[in-house]
Every structure is written in C-alpha cells, then in structure tokens.
C-alpha cells in the first residue's frame, strides 16, 4: 500500500523492484507529485525492496505466506 499523499515521486522504488511491479502514476497528489502505484500487482513477491529503499517510508508491505500471494 502506498500512502499516495506522502509519496514524493522520487522513483527509487521503481528502480529497486526486481519484478517491475511499480510505476509512477499519471495522476498527482495534492503536493503535485506523481505518486507510485502497483502497475503489475501480480508480479509482486513481497521482497520489501520498495519499502526498504523508500526515503519517506510511505510503503507498507503485506505478504500472505500461506497462499503465496502478495500485495503491496
């Protein structure tokens, strides 16, 4: 989950994701930043790279181990 209001559009998550899940939205938040969103949610494996590199900690990662399905 991306806190879109706090995202500053730095794009570091985009380049850190090993499976190219994230892209920058064409929309902007109230500060004028293009925020990050999951363009390919099914490719996410919950590695937390995006959240770990995010300077502002706007990403929360949920991983459901049993079903091996993840959501960011």
């Amino acid at each position, binding site marked *: 989950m991306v806190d879109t209001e706090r995202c500053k559009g*730095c*794009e*570091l998550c985009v*380049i850190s994701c090993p499976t190219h899940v994230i892209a920058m939205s064409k929309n902007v938040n109230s500060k004028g930043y293009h925020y990050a969103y999951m363009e390919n949610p099914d490719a996410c494996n919950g590695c*937390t790279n995006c*959240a770990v*590199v995010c*300077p502002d900690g706007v990403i929360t990662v*949920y991983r459901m181990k049993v079903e091996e399905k993840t959501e960011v």
Partner: protein
Amino acid sequence: MADIDIKDIVKEENIVYKKTKVLTDKVMHYCPGCGHSTTHRIIAEVIEEMGIQDKTIGIAPVGCSVFMYDYIDVDTQEAAHGRAPALATAIKRLLPDRFVFTYQGDGDLAAIGTAETIHACNRGENITMIFINNGIYGMTGGQMAPTSLEGMRTSTTPYGRDPGLMGHPIKMTELVAQLPGTYYVTRQAVHTPNLVRKTKKAIRKAFEYQKLNKGVSFVEVVSNCNSGWKMTPVKAVKWLDENMLSFYPLGDIKVPEK
C-alpha cells in the same frame, strides 16, 4: 490470478514492512529521494528494535537536517553548526547509561566542526556519530563542501572544483579511523534496498557498541543531494554510483578485533 481478494492480503497480521513508530507522523521536509529521509528512517527503526527510545538522546546539526527532532521521536538537542560532538561529549559523560548519537552533514562535521569531530574521536567518547556525506551544502543552496569531488560544479565552484585553489576533497572517515579513540568506523550508503539493509546493520552495531565503552562508532552515509546536484533522484543515484563511490568506497574501515 485474481482468485484471492485484496482484502484478504491487506491485513494487520500480514504486514512484513511498515513505517516504524519511532518516526513521527510529520511528513519529512527533505527533497524527494534524499538520503536524509532514508537514514532518519533507519535510525528510528534501530531505536525501535533495540527498545531504547526512552534512553536515547539525539543531537541535530545545522543543515537540511536541522529539524531532525521533528521526525525521530527521542529527546533531542539542537547544536550550533559543527558543535554536535561537543554536546554529545558532555551528555554522555554526564548520563553514561543513555545512548547518545550525533547526526551531521559534511559542512557540520568536516568544515566548521572539524576540531570537535577530531577531538571527540580522539578522546574516544562512547557515542555514535552519523555523518551524511553528499559532497555539497544542501540547505544553503548548493555551495561547495570540503567533501565535494574534484571538478564538481557547485554554486561556489561554478567552473568545477579546482584542487589547486580549494584543495582536494577530504576523507574524514579515513582520518578518524587513524585515531585510537574510534572503535568502529564504516562507510555506507542508502540508495538501493540492499545498501539500506547493510546500513541498518551498521547503525545497529554503532548503537550496540556504546554499551562496551570502547570509543566512537562512526558511520558515514554517502548520499545523493538531488537539489544540490540538480538531478532527478534516479539520475543522482546513478551519478553517486559512478562518481562518489570510487572516491568514497563503501565498506568497513575499522572493525573491532574479535
């Protein structure tokens, strides 16, 4: 593969990463992609994991991170430019069972505060010193720092830093490692997830070592300054990889002997 509802996944018990409680809710004022934000986050996470929020005292510098105390939820003192190690010296000697850390940029630690940096390290104060090196003076608009690279364009070296006029960039970390008062000296970075994880381990060690009373734990974080360097975060990180790290190589410079 949409047979699992998103509502099943987004549940409290499935969280594998979320923002630490030791960071306040205030949105950090740093530029997008700035290493300050990431490092603040890492420090806060270490404090939460070690359970020392009620025992930690931080000292904020003058620079972009002058408002560190608005973001990391621990008792904090604002130091004059460059003087943080002096404050930390007194606080740690007067309250030896607390965890005391300083957080400084390159102007603070390597220009105006050089004497305080060297002497706190020489005396072997049992503190953690965190040094954010982005090779520029961010807050005041992008002037040259002692750590700016040769040839680097800044607002006071518009034609590139000329070592003949302004000297070479200074490697504070290697300097302080030579002093017997430093116990753990390392250089890290925070612009990729793996580096963030490594830096967090380093900062965790730097805090843990305070308990040993063996001297300064010094962690340099080589960071990008997107506004100062006038690049996008993604380009700045690339520039960092290609230029800063060859001069400021990452890794442990001094580790405690086993």
